[in-house]
C-alpha cells in the first residue's frame, strides 16, 4: 500500500462501515408499524378494516333506530317491555347464554388433531362471520378452551371427543361464506390436510343447525363494571 493511499483506504473502510451500521440498525429494528407491510398485506388490511367499519355503521344505524323507539315510547308513557325483551334475547343468544338455531356449516373431523388446530378452525369460522359455534355439543364462549394432547383433547377440562373419535363442529352463519373460508385453495382445511395426512376434515353446508346454550356462568365475579 502506497503512502498516500493509506488514509484514504482507512477512511473508505470507515465510511462503508458507518453505512453498514446504519443499514443494519434499521433492518434490526423490526418496525412493527404499517411501514413493514407489503402492498398485498396493506390491501388485505384495508379490506378487513373496511368490513368492520361497515358492520359498525350498520350497528350505529340499528342503535339509533332503537334509541328513537325507546325515546318515543318513554314520551308516550308507554310501559311496553317488548323492546327490552327483544334486546335481552339478542344479547343472551349472541353471547351464548341462549341457544341459537339457523343455517350454517358442519365440520366433521376424523383423526387426532392437536388442540391448536381445533382453535384455528374456530378462529377461522369466527373471522368468516360465524354467529354461534359448538364443538361436540359444547357452545364455544369466552373461557372455553380446547387443550390436551392429540387424541385425548379436553374442552374446559372435560373430554372433548367420545369413543367415536369424531369431532363435530357446528357454526351458524352464511353457509357458503363459512364453507368457502375453510375450503378455499390454500385455506385452513388444505393446510391441515397437508400437515396431518391421517386426519380427514369434511365441511358440509347445513340448512338447519342447533347450537346449544353454554353451561358456563359468564357473569363476572371479580371485575366491576365501569359504568
Amino acid at each position, binding site marked *: 500500500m502506497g503512502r498516500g493511499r*493509506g*488514509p484514504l483506504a*482507512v477512511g473508505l473502510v*470507515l*465510511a462503508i462501515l*458507518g*453505512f453498514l*451500521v*446504519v443499514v443494519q440498525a*434499521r433492518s434490526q429494528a*423490526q418496525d*412493527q408499524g*404499517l411501514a413493514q*407491510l407489503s402492498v398485498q*398485506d*396493506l390491501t388485505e*388490511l*384495508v379490506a*378487513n378494516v373496511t368490513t*368492520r367499519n361497515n*358492520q*359498525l355503521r*350498520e350497528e*350505529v344505524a340499528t*342503535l339509533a333506530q332503537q*334509541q328513537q323507539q325507546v325515546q318515543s315510547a*318513554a314520551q308516550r308513557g308507554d310501559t311496553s317491555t317488548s323492546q*327490552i325483551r327483544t334486546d*335481552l334475547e*339478542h*344479547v343472551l*343468544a*349472541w*353471547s*351464548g*347464554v*341462549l*341457544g*341459537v*338455531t339457523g343455517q*350454517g356449516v358442519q365440520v366433521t373431523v376424523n383423526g387426532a388433531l392437536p388442540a391448536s388446530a381445533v*382453535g384455528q378452525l374456530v*378462529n377461522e369460522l*369466527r373471522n368468516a362471520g360465524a*354467529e354461534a359455534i359448538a364443538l361436540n355439543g359444547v357452545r364455544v364462549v*369466552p*373461557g372455553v*378452551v380446547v387443550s390436551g394432547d392429540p387424541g385425548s383433547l379436553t374442552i374446559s377440562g372435560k373430554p372433548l371427543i367420545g369413543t367415536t373419535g369424531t369431532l363435530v363442529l357446528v357454526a*351458524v352463519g*352464511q353457509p357458503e361464506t363459512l364453507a368457502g373460508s375453510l375450503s378455499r385453495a390454500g385455506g385452513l382445511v388444505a393446510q391441515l390436510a397437508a400437515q396431518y395426512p391421517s386426519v380427514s376434515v369434511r365441511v358440509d353446508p347445513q340448512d338447519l343447525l342447533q*347450537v346449544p*346454550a353454554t353451561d358456563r356462568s359468564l*357473569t*363476572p*365475579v*371479580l*371485575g366491576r*363494571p*365501569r*359504568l
Partner: protein
Amino acid sequence: MTALAGRIRSIPSWQITLGLALLALGFLIAAQMAAEGPRVQYTSQERTPLVATVLDLQKQQDALKKQVLDARAAIASLEAAGQGGAAVTKQLSDQLQNAQIAAGLVPMSGPGLVIQLSDSTLQVPADGNAQDYLVSGADVLTVVDQLWAAGAEGVAINGERVVVSTAVVDIGGSVVVNGAYVAAPYQVTAIGPKTMFDTLTHQPGFADFIRSRGEAFGIGVQYATPDVGVDLPAYAGSMNLRYGRPTATPSTSAAP
C-alpha cells in the same frame, strides 16, 4: 494488540480527521437513503396512499366505536329511567344490563395482570424465516387461551375486548383483532384471581409457549400485575345474528 496500537499511533492526525469525516459521510448517506423512501423492497408508489387509507379507516373505526358505545349507554339509561318505574320493566332492564356485562359490552375493572408480547430482537439467521421472529396472531391466541385456562374472567388485546365472536388474524407481520388493526407490542390484559399468574406459569401449555417462542426465537414476554388492578374496554362491535335466531325455549339457567 501492541502492533495495532503502534500502527494507530503512527497515523497522522489529519488522516484520523479524514477518516472520521468519511465515517460521518457514510452515516449521512445511509440516513439519507433510508429517509428518501420506505423500505427498499417496497418502493411501490401504491404504498403511501394505502398506508394513509388504513390510518384513515382506523380513525373512522375509532369514531364509529365511540358512537356505538354512546348509543348503547343512552339506550340503557332511557330504559332504566324513563319507563314509569314499573317493577317488571326495572327487572328486565337490570337483566339486560347484567347480560351486557356478561357479554363483554361494558368496560370492567378488577384485579388481574398484563402480558406484553414483543417481537424478537434477535438477528434472523440467513436460513431463518423472519416471520418466526415476529409475534403472530397464533401467539396472541395462545396467550389468551392460557389466560382463560388460568381462570381469567375477562380478556382484552390492546384496545379490543375478547368476546364470543373475536377472531385474531395475521396479515403480513401485523395482527387484526375484532377487525381492528392492532400494533406490536401486544398487551394481553386479563381480569382474574390473584392466583392467576402462578396458575398460568405452571401450565404445561404456557411453558411450551415460552420454550417454543420465547427461548427459540426470542419473542419477548413480559408481565405486570398492577396493584391498582387492570381495566378492560367494552366490546364496541356488532352482535350479528342474521342467520341464527335465539332458540325459542330458554333454559331455566339462562338469565343471569
